[in-house]
């Protein structure tokens, strides 16, 4: 297995407050890793650094062995909210990276079909439900055909049933696109279902291994692991 993403953060500070210190994480190609931890522990900061959006830190990010300088087309990012541009249609949002809408039409059509929005290409974001908007955001995240996908609590704003559907969708697209996935979540059940590896960020990194995919929701092994994670979080 080759390493897709290497994150080494010596220090990340906001003013005088240090949020990350000596954090190192490696993601194997094709691996789905969830990052969990208490609020304010630096999960989202770590993701922002890994995406290249935040460059005000001490350390180094490597993508397939090469140091990352700023944002990259090889890294897709999906935010907590869909963050679609409200003046663009769904198709235009998905193809936002493209300067030539016509040349990207086939890719957009394929991506929208993958996320189940093939009938909503011409819709405006205001006409979508929360789940549909997040599906469109996933399609947009895949448009650059990234090799690594970063997700910052992407399903936290949708209802439980939609969340489960979106989780299955994420697993499907991660498999189809051979993606390496780093997911920040507060939902331990979500982490247990989606991840090959769960990393708990709290005074260093602790790892948990939910077992090989496909995993079942709420089985006995998952329950045991959830208890262990909650114990580590002192909950």
């Amino acid at each position, binding site marked *: 297995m080759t390493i897709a993403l290497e994150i080494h953060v010596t220090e990340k500070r906001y003013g005088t407050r240090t949020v990350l210190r000596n954090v190192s994480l490696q993601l194997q190609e094709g691996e789905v890793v969830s990052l969990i931890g208490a609020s304010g522990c630096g999960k989202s900061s770590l993701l922002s650094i890994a995406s290249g*959006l935040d460059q005000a830190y001490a350390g180094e990010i490597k993508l397939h062995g090469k140091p990352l300088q700023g*944002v990259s087309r090889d890294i897709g990012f999906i935010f907590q909210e869909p*963050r679609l*541009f409200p003046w*663009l249609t769904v198709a235009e949002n998905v193809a*936002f990276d493209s300067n030539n809408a016509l040349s990207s039409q086939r890719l957009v059509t394929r991506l929208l079909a993958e996320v189940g929005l093939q009938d909503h290409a011409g819709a405006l*974001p205001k006409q979508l439900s929360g789940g549909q908007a997040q599906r469109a955001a996933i399609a947009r995240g895949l448009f650059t055909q990234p090799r690594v996908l970063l997700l910052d609590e992407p399903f936290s704003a949708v209802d439980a049933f939609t969340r489960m559907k979106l989780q299955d969708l994420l697993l499907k697209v991660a498999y189809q696109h051979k993606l390496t996935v780093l997911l920040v979540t507060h939902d331990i059940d979500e982490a247990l279902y989606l991840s090959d590896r769960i990393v708990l960020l709290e005074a260093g990194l602790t790892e948990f291994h939910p077992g090989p995919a496909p995993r079942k929701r709420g089985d006995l092994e998952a329950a045991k692991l959830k208890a262990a994670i909650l114990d580590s979080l002192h909950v």
Partner: protein
Amino acid sequence: MGVASGIRGVDRKLIEVARLYRLSNVALTRRVLLPAALPAILTGLRNGLSLAWMFMVAAELIAASKGLGYLLSDGRETSRADIVLAAIFLLAILGKISDSLMATIEKRSLAWRDSYA
């Protein structure tokens, strides 16, 4: 002022998305800042237009030899109530037409906005 305050009020989260796509400053302005600021820009233009009518009449009242303001002033000085009323009526109609035009442009340009009206 409308453009400046509109751009200042653009959602930081949308800028963050745009940064993911490595947009140049020109592209960021054209593809994100201006469309996002359009509601504030159009509101500013609409307010500016109604103010422009008022200031135009005020200027004509003070120093002009023709125009609506001059008609108002001339009608008052010659005790011609019909001229004064006609000038006021014309001013109201012109103001309403220009405001309705701006409202139509605003409605069409901002059809994407998820707002009450």
